[in-house]
């Protein structure tokens, strides 16, 4: 952060110019949008169907702890396909992509930092390495 701040303070002019370019770009970008071909849509649909089958099938195979990793991995991949193609993020501005990513970033903060508490509740004694 500080690094960025520092650079910014040093070169007000450059960044101002940069923002001006961004302004310009937003005017040109994405007027009537990208028309995705039927083939892509059908292909994505079939992939999603296939992955649904895989996720059900895998549930019947005992992979131990890996089961939930695989299930969530497939779900995440499916969701990404929907976001990327059906929701046209592929053809959207970087800002939209940033918005999508930040949603999951903040969700990760919520889940991750809460689990910091629950994950260490049973550390009755500090792990040997800390003692």
């Amino acid at each position, binding site marked *: 952060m500080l690094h960025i701040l520092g650079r910014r303070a040093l070169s007000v002019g450059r960044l101002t110019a940069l923002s001006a370019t961004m302004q310009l770009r937003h005017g040109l970008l994405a007027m009537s949008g990208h028309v995705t071909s039927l083939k892509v849509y059908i292909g994505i649909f079939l992939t999603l169907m296939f992955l649904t089958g895989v996720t059900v099938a895998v549930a019947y195979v005992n992979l131990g702890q890996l089961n939930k990793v695989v299930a969530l991995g497939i779900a995440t991949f499916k969701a990404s396909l929907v976001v990327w193609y059906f929701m046209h993020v592929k053809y959207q501005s970087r800002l939209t992509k940033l918005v999508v990513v930040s*949603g999951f970033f903040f*969700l990760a903060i919520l889940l991750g930092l809460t689990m910091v508490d629950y994950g260490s509740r049973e550390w009755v004694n500090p792990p040997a390495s800390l003692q």
Partner: protein
Amino acid sequence: MHAHAAHHPALQHQFQTMSQQKESAVLGMWAFLLTEVLFFGGLFMAYMLYRTWYHDAFVLASTSITIFWGLLNTVVLIGSSLTMALAVRSAQINQRKATVMWLIATMVLGTVFLGVKVIEYADKFEHHHVPGPEYAFIEPGHEPIFELGPHGRELLERNSAESLNRTTQIFFSLYFTMTGLHALHMIIGIGLMCVITWMAWKGRFSSEYYTPVEMSGLYWHFVDIVWIFLFPLLYLIDRS
């Protein structure tokens, strides 16, 4: 107004150009979906915690749910995502009738999904799998009313009926809250689409202006994504 911008009837007064208007709508919709991610995120947090705490109960409760209905609904919902995407595409390329048709197809599939949900809920009501005073997952001393998974017997033996009744209730509380809110989103989506379909029928959209179709599409796909996660999390815990 800027002189060079062709004054499209759908251009609102606060905007200078159609592209500015559309970009605003897209960003606004995505910001809204961001909100939705965090909204369901709270439920996923609770789910994650209790699944770790009450693993046995979650496995048993998950096995008691019929995969068939969940799978059917997944297919239906992904199908509806396809038809929705095609509706947007038709609007983009000025095919009014196709737009209306695909929108109707989407609504039909959405309704099928809700119908299946009704069947599933009714089943749970009948078997007292709805949390509350009537709740009973397993009658002490009785065989469970659902088919046990491969480890089911073992899980059943190492937990008492009382403790399972207590902790599976958390699973079903989350099940009903998650699927209930998801279904509510679908109902709102279908309502939204009724309006959009009517607008499409009236010829309000064109390759110049189809933002409302696209926005409802984004919403609908998001609802689909939520289900893509709910399906494995609720239906598919450890069937091996």
